């Protein structure tokens, strides 16, 4: 941030998937392990070009999605900022290891580009059917940070955010895109170095003998050294004590679980990202995310033109669900419209939080088509 002239920002005409790569590299990603699947493959392909050229970048195509997540977690433990990307079927296969990453607190970013499901479904059509899966797909109760992006520039920005949250909270972060966002080319602006934050995981600063890898800290997040740096310890997916050794003693298990939930919950305000658009005085508020939020923005403008005080709460964080933001708009909005390319997955969260205050109208589509502005407009005008 010298006083001199600022460098011009670089602009690119890029796919959402390509923007993810730009964001990842800006955030310091040095490891990609993956398995191709439409509509996420471009992330992998561009990584295959870029990472070998990077100082310390490693690109690896694995034999399947399970192996991809294994390699990514391994690389994360070895000190890399690591990521993978996939779509529906691959996301299902990654679930066991997503839970392992939670349990061993391995930071990583998993981008899931949603296509039509269930099963093979509609491989080249958009959907938002994996939202609840991103939260609940792995067995055993756990916390999960799930982010989303609604345009190509946001793909870049939210990927940086995903890495930062992963490193800050020592946790896997899922970034959910939909096929439209991923497969649209738009202009993106690469931020200058002083325009975005990069968070690196905290490493231990005490002598190795005093280091306890899963010890309580103020933030709930223990420091994490890369493997091979002199801090030898045990990592396991079994419930473990502060030393990392397996334990089934209820007190120790409770301590572990409690800390793992708390380390994210206590930072809820920082983790809950959203944008309010014309919300301040809104009677009717649309809650949307992903490419549907684009349609929603337009619909809200149209509704205003027609005299309806409409607003948009665009969610960038899907989980932990931005409860406070929702409650805030429910302070004045008498109705909420929740358009989704699924049968109502975020609308469940809205209803749960709502607690009877406002009318919640879910607007759903599962035929591989985006929800158009006019559909949303119609719903706004009706409620």
């Amino acid at each position, binding site marked *: 941030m010298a006083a001199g002239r600022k460098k011009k920002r670089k*602009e*690119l*005409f890029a796919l959402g998937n390509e923007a993810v790569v730009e964001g990842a590299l800006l955030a310091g990603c040095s490891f990609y392990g993956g398995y191709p699947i*439409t*509509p996420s493959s471009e992330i992998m392909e561009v990584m295959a070009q870029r990472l070998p050229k990077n100082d310390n970048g490693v690109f690896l195509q694995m034999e399947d999605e399970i192996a991809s997540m294994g390699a990514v977690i391994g690389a994360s433990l070895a000190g890399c900022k690591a990521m993978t990307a996939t779509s529906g079927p691959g996301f299902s296969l990654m679930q066991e290891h997503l839970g392992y990453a939670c349990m061993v607190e391995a930071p990583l970013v998993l981008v899931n580009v949603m296509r039509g499901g269930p099963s093979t479904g509609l*491989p*080249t059509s958009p959907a938002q059917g994996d939202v609840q899966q991103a939260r609940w797909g792995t067995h055993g109760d756990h916390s999960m940070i799930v982010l989303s992006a609604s345009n190509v520039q946001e793909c870049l920005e939210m990927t940086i955010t995903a890495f930062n949250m992963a490193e800050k909270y020592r946790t896997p972060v899922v970034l959910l895109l939909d096929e*439209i966002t991923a*497969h*649209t*080319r*738009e*202009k993106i602006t690469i931020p200058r170095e002083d325009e975005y934050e990069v968070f690196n995981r905290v490493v231990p600063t005490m002598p190795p003998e005093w280091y306890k890898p899963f010890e309580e800290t103020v933030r709930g997040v223990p420091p994490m050294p890369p493997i091979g740096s002199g801090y030898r310890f045990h990592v396991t997916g079994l419930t473990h004590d502060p030393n990392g050794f397996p334990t089934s003693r209820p007190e120790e298990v409770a301590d572990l679980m409690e800390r793992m939930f708390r380390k994210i919950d206590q930072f809820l305000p920082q983790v809950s990202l959203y944008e309010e658009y014309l919300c301040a005085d809104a009677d009717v508020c649309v809650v949307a995310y992903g*490419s549907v939020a*684009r*349609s929603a*923005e*337009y*619909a809200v403008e149209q509704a205003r033109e027609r005299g309806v005080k409409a607003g948009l709460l665009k969610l960038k964080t899907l989980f932990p669900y931005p409860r406070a933001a929702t409650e805030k708009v429910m302070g004045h909005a008498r109705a909420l419209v929740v358009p989704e390319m699924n049968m109502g997955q975020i609308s469940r969260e809205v209803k749960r939080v709502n607690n009877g205050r406002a009318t919640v109208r879910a607007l759903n589509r599962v035929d591989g088509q*985006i929800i*158009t*502005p*006019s559909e949303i407009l119609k719903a706004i005008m009706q409620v």
Partner: protein
Amino acid sequence: MKQGVNLERFEIRLSGLGGQGIITLGRVLGAGLALGHGYQVTQTQSYGPEARGGSSRCDLVVSSGKISYPKAQSLDLLVALSQEACNAYYSFLKPGGILVLETDLVRQPPTNLYLGLPFTEMAASKVGIVQAMNTIVLGAISYLLPFVEQRIMRSSLQSALPAKIRDVNTKAFNLGHREAKREFGEQPEIWKGKPEEREGSDI
């Protein structure tokens, strides 16, 4: 990067066979409009089985303001470089939209309201490489679209290409522009001003 014309929403589809360089054409056009001319542009394309079996498709939505819905649905301009593509997409053309054809490859145009050039033959005979066909199309489109400045699009093209094929493509671009000017006549009237609003339409 001023925008010459104020656009509400302008939809273009480039279509044809795999191997004709349709996607590259769309990317260069899109980059030129977005980075060179400063428009909002969204570009999408066909994927999966659709993209095999020899067919290829690339859509652009161009606008001065934010683009709410990034995919093309009601086309202002359809470029069809194969008979199949023409058959498949003609019905998406909006009333008054313009159809541009490869006249050697589209032998049965669905209408007599179209603009056409034998792009492939031109590439072969006048540029010397068939692969430059898409650049000729780019030149022709650049003439046709009133919001495109030839100079900006040409330099946008040049910056997208590796040095060794830059010259030949510049030549192709110019050829396309020139021939379009000669063959297509005036730029379509309806595109000149701000296109009418399409309120309530299912965009």
